[in-house]
């Protein structure tokens, strides 16, 4: 656990907590606005959380080269997560056009 100093751990942990909070707030926003596209965004933010868990696990074991596959998995989940975000963004973009048309 000592590859990272306490402040660096705090930066990591707060990032993860904030991302969870962001997912939850977007979900709440979807409930209040009754707009389906925000549920989509909230779900689309999930793979990035898994990606972060991979990175933190790797750091927890002091960044061993043996567990390099965790970093590759993190990178793969980042690709997946950004594609899901892209999909959610596309839906938000389209919803704007439908609200204008109505």
């Amino acid at each position, binding site marked *: 656990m000592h590859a*990272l*100093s306490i402040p660096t751990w705090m930066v990591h942990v707060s990032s993860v907590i904030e991302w969870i909070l962001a997912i939850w707030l977007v979900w709440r*926003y979807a409930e209040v606005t009754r707009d389906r596209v925000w549920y989509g965004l909230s779900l689309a933010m999930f793979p990035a959380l898994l990606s972060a868990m991979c990175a933190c696990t790797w750091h927890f074991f002091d960044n061993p080269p043996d567990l390099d596959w965790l*970093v590759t998995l993190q990178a*793969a989940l*980042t690709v997946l997560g950004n594609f899901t975000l892209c999909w959610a*963004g596309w839906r*938000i973009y389209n919803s704007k056009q439908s609200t204008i048309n109505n």
Partner: protein
Amino acid sequence: MNISSRETGFLSKLTVFSPNFAQKPGFLVLITHYLLPKTMFSKDNLFAISLFPYLAFLWFITRSGRMPRLALIGFYVLLLFVLVTIPAGIYAKQAYHEVLANVDWLHGGAEFFLTLCNILVVLGFRQALMKEENKE
């Protein structure tokens, strides 16, 4: 020791059900440790590839005009994080002969931009949520 186990222990790592997941994660190791690095899907390439759908995401949410303002700024700050990690990673290699994650002050400093990004996204949606709740 690690290198030799990596060279000889290939088949032993293929167990799906293993008592020690950290050392023998089975299929995951096969894919992420042996197959992916030998293809174009190495971790560095994957991180580079991931930027393109993210740029498309930014384009969509900017053009939609529906993203809460602070959250939109937050999602853009993530690009700043990417921009910082690239020179930080190169400097860690050149000055310390280490990966970025092993040079604590560079690692923490770069990662701070991600924390900043997430704070802005949280604040943006918190404001938007409070505004909607007051409407009702």
